[in-house]
């Protein structure tokens, strides 16, 4: 097996009366495609928030590339090479799609000269290529606010990809995409990840997507991993089928 790049160790987080993380642990190796599945409220998004610095665990540690990132800010973690797309897309709504992506590229390239116009950014070509990956070249000049949620989710992923992360978290990447387009999007996306040698962890509800694109599946329940294994093992696990997929044996 290839190198370990992310390790979450016994993460604990309780807010109010909810145990959002309860000894959550996960090891991620380079080039894995890990799908996280589980019922709503199982703590899947909380886990991503803990790994990317948005929330701080009350106990436990997170390591990335061998160093402890538990206490780091989202910004610092992002700079280390962890990208992220969100369940509710986090974009600059008043700006165009192009501007959103170019800003991400500026952040990566650290091109902050006040004399450079964003719309004349030297990385414009790469920006179009990124849009192509999520199939949204035509929407480039539109303002994000006017776009439907599904498109925004894809742009959110493109923004995360623009940073060329070593590891990317995607929170329900295809939830807004119609079922017949899902596979097309996931195909190009996976190809792009392969080409960049980017490791990916994604929360997913569609078991067909999980079966087809995940190399490993982690089943979340009660703030921790209940089961872990290959898609085949997990999707045929009777308990998982009942509690997560909602199909009785």
């Amino acid at each position: 097996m290839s190198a370990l790049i992310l390790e979450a160790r016994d993460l604990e987080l309780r807010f109010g009366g909810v145990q959002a993380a309860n000894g959550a642990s996960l090891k991620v190796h380079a080039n894995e495609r890990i799908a996280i599945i589980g019922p709503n409220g199982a703590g899947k998004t909380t886990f991503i928030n803990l790994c990317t610095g948005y929330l701080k665990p009350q106990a436990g540690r997170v390591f990335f590339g061998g160093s402890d990132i538990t206490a780091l800010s989202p910004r610092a973690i992002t700079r280390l090479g962890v990208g992220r797309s969100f369940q509710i897309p986090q974009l600059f709504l008043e700006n165009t799609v192009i501007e959103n992506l170019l800003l991400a590229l500026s952040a990566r390239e650290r091109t902050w000269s006040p004399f450079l116009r964003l719309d004349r950014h030297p990385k414009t070509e790469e920006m179009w290529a990124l849009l192509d990956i999520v199939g949204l070249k035509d929407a480039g000049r539109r303002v994000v606010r006017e776009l439907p949620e599904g498109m925004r989710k894809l742009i959110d992923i493109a923004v995360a990809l623009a940073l060329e992360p070593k590891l990317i978290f995607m929170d329900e990447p295809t939830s807004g995409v119609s079922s017949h387009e899902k596979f097309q999007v996931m195909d190009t996306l996976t190809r792009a990840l392969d080409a960049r040698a980017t490791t990916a962890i994604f929360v997913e509800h569609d078991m067909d997507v999980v079966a087809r694109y995940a190399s490993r599946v982690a089943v979340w329940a009660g703030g921790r991993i209940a089961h872990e294994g290959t898609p085949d093992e997990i999707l045929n696990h009777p308990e998982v089928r009942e509690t997560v997929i909602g199909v009785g044996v």
Partner: protein
Amino acid sequence: MARQLIIGAGLLAALIIFPLLSPWSTVILTVALCEGLAALGILVLLRAGQVSFGHGLYFAFSAYVVAFMAAARFGHEVLILVPVATAASGLLAALVGLFVVRYRAIFFGMLNLAISMVFFSLLEKLFSITGGADGKRVPRPTLAGISLERAEFELWIFYITLGLAVLAALGVARYLLSPGGKALEAIKSNETRLEYLGVSSRKVLFGAYVLSGLLAGLGGAVIALVSGHVTPELAYWVRSGEFVFIAILGGVGGVVGPFLGALMFQIIRGYAAVYAPETWHAVLGVMLLVIIFFAPNGLYGLMTGRKPAGTGQ
């Protein structure tokens, strides 16, 4: 952009010609430019969704730097006073900025207000140093080594200020189009994403804050020169509120906006002072309400008929 250039060029042409036709307007127009510069600083912060009710601090600080240097006959020369005072304001903004950029929305506004009021109170209280509420005189300095008569001096200061204002407006416009400017707008629309781009929103805001302090400082330095007198009132919260007023009146959609707003502000105030000397505050208040309710994008928005970029409406 083209529209902005046309409006800007029109305004500029009018400003170049007007003082020659009616000399009495020179000082009023210079004051308008100074307030426009401060409002331009407010515009920069508004792009990040932040409102400062305390930029009178930088306006007044720079004006007092000019007054102190002039009183000490230290560098009693426009070409020294203005850059030094502006830079001093920028430094102060950098110092204050270290703290305030950690805050957002109402807390950002409040903290700016509080700090400016501390400065205001000190100016009033430290009578032996600052002259208290009566302020300090600013003897007229030389300009490029030449001692000028009042009218000449005022005219020259006006054109110099006009030139500086044009440069400042172009510079800010350029900055707002740059990645840094867009990142600034991103603080308003989605700070979370900005952080997840690996960009420090505090650093971005810090840069903008220093810029706004410099702009307000430039305005304050010039106003000290043309008034020949500085008072703590320059730092009072109502003055800071006027800068925000002017920015909104003119419209934050383009860098020409604050200058349009400042001119309009001076015109209304001038007329109100003549026709309603005892109720000019109310006249301005009504004007502000009219703008907010019927033209929320300000005069600039009315002229371009466009929604301002980067404002969430």
